């Protein structure tokens, strides 16, 4: 089976070469920016760039990084998940209320919390795929539903406690490296590989780019899209558990702070909001960049308004620089 029977006149094609897209150029640039910021901060506040300090910042970044992984996957299929804020909170609240500070309750509590993520993801996915509700509306509504459910469940008063084991994971470290950073690194490695090189990743990107093509190629689009929302829900739940452990308790509204930063990190990381392009590497770099930037703004004693302005300008600068770098590539086609 071939287009031509005679093979001898076929020249050996060159080895596959990946065209470096925007997604590949951006992470490096963001890391470069971050390093520049660290150097700057070291000058303002000597000792800032010490290894232990940077590890602390990485630990802070890891929570946003984990939530943003779910958001990345959802945005790769052309969706958006606004429900992660209260899915995270609901999971954290349920976790502490079952765990009650006992390691023995840990498996059950974790399972129950993750079930929240799975369930909300399933409902989100079902509404979006089967009922054709716009993702932005579906997940916004789910966010409200989760908020209400959490209030009803707790009576507005989350209780319980964190078990010592999970607390150790979220706050402890090994050889100077926080466990959270180790965990994030492992998750990030797996995610980058999975999105780029696994069957699942290929399908995800295919559905995100052109659902008609992927459907005609035998891909179960509905399952992939619902799966993406379930995955995002699970990531929000896992982050909720870990973040509650980091904080020592669960609070109402603890997820709100992650919503816009997670979206910002994903888009700044080069994932297209229309799906099909991007990956987690860019998101990781963007999370890192955003954390360093906000830290520098905090230690610079800059007024709240000015911080917002600088953050916005920095994001613009990063994407414009990326655009200028990428311009050379576009012409080479």
């Amino acid at each position, binding site marked *: 089976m*071939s287009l031509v029977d005679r093979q001898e006149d076929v020249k050996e*094609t060159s080895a*596959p070469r990946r065209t470096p897209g925007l997604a590949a150029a951006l992470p490096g640039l963001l890391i470069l920016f971050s390093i520049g910021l660290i150097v700057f901060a070291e000058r303002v506040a000597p000792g800032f760039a010490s290894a232990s300090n940077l590890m602390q910042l990485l630990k802070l970044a890891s929570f946003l990084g984990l939530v943003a992984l779910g958001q990345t996957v959802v945005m790769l299929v052309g969706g958006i998940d606004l429900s992660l804020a209260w899915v995270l909170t609901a999971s954290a609240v349920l976790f502490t209320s079952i765990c009650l500070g006992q390691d023995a309750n840990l498996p059950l509590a974790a399972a129950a919390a993750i079930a929240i993520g799975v369930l909300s993801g399933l409902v989100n996915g079902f509404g979006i795929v089967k009922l054709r509700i716009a993702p932005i509306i579906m997940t916004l509504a789910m966010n409200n539903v989760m908020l209400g459910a959490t209030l009803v469940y707790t009576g507005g008063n989350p209780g319980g406690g964190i078990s010592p084991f999970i607390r150790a994971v979220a706050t402890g470290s090994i050889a100077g490296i926080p466990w959270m950073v180790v965990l994030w690194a492992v998750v990030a490695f797996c995610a980058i590989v999975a999105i780029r090189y696994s*069957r*699942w990743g290929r399908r995800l990107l295919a559905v995100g*780019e052109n659902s008609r*093509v992927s459907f005609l190629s*035998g*891909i179960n689009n509905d399952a992939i899209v619902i799966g993406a929302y379930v995955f995002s829900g699970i990531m929000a739940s896992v982050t909720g558990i870990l973040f509650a452990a980091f904080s020592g308790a669960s609070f109402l509204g603890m997820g709100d702070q992650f919503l816009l930063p997670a979206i910002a990190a994903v888009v700044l990381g080069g994932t297209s909001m229309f799906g099909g392009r991007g990956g987690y590497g860019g998101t990781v770099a963007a999370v890192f960049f955003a954390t360093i930037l906000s830290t520098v703004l905090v230690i610079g004693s800059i007024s709240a308004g000015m911080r917002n302005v600088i953050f916005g300008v920095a994001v613009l600068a990063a994407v414009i620089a990326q655009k200028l770098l990428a311009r050379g590539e576009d012409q080479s086609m």
Partner: protein
Amino acid sequence: MLRLSDIHKSYGATHAVRSVSLEAAPGTVLGLVGENGAGKSTLIKIVSGAIVADGGGIELDGQAVVPRSTRHALALGIASVFQELTLVRELSVEQNLFLTDPPVRPWLSIDRRRRRSVATEILARHDLDIAPDARVGDLPLGRQQMLEIIRAVERKPRVLLLDEASSALAATEVDWLAALLTKLRQQGSIILFISHRWDEIVRFCNRVAVLRNGELMAMAETDKLSEAEAVRLMTGQSGTDEAFPNKVAVHGDVALSARELRSDQLAGVSVDLRRGEILGLGGLVGQGQGHLLEAFFGAHGLSSGAILVGELPLDRPTPRRAIRAGLAYVPQERKTEGLLLLKSVGQNITLAILDRLRTLLGVIEPRDEADLIRKAIARAKVRTRGGGELVSNLSGGNQQKVLLEKWLLAKPSILLLNDVTRGVDVGTKRQIYEVIASIAREGVGVIWYSTDARELVGVAHRVLVMLGGRVSAELTGAEVTEDRIVHAAVMGSTPQAEVHA
């Protein structure tokens, strides 16, 4: 007088057009022929303002012009129609006709009543039977292309560029275009016409320019250039026509059968396909042929009917189930249904067989896959820098090869082809004919829908002609002729006497 002198355009190291000079006097229909990648489209795009040449000049009626954009070209009196339609599918026919210069009322709102009356008049004048308020996306492809052509004509251009503008037109619609071009010629317009159908070139053009590898090979009066000579100039080899491979008689078992398929587009279709058989589907554009193929593949919802693959029923088919059952479907719309344009050649080739790739914990073994891709590229003679190149960087013909190879890798037992040679150059067509013939010889059943009746005659063992969502005629053996296909397509049946002769 349109004069191009010493036009150059290169992309990186590739010279798309090198040093092409030609001229066309008023009243000329100049045909541009050549294989895909020969530079015809690049040349036309330069004249139309879609791209800017690296060097050389364009002169129109003695004035040097440099079209910077399509809009600029229109202002200069150069209108163009491309194979990729530039109508907005979401909008209505009249909205598309008056996209940039609608009649407006004093307070700037569009005067809908006047627009309606002018649109109706234009459609009537051009003998086009479509409603002015119809959504363009709802029209059959042929009608969309006709609309696109009259929109360009209505701009009253000095120069009209038609790049594969007839590719979606059925036989009667081609007649319509012939009449239109004749009229324009008499009015003294200059027309540049690209087509892969030699018969259209002969019919429409009084002059023809042959391009190969970006260079002008010959420029002649159409009636002085034989088809064989033209092909020789285009390919650089001697040979005639598309050179269809020999048909081999088939005696296989039934591979696929369908009973009474009904949907909103199909009115009770029954089909039997044998192993090793190439079954052609013909007829006017939009008579349910594409829907029938999609129905087999689970991409078009059926209201009733049964499909059997071999002995096994294919219940509630989806593409996924169909692929598992051994079907493969090569869609007509390469760019919207066939390929992921943001992905590499390699990722496109393996998309339908991800399940069969060797993996470790779900992660695809890169070397294994790269090997598969390299072989596929080599087999299909895809012109690419490698499996990692973006598929959108390839020329149309090479994209088509990638698309076909994607489905051949799935090793189907039944292959469904939806007009796969549309807009493809002669060389690639020939390769496609040969490969389909060879897999049919290996026992694969093929259903092949084509808008080109001559192609059906060349490749198919048996032809079903469809009209209005049902099979209007079945032609076998010696009955498969161009005349009968066209006759059945238009009249709904073949002349009685001959069928039983």
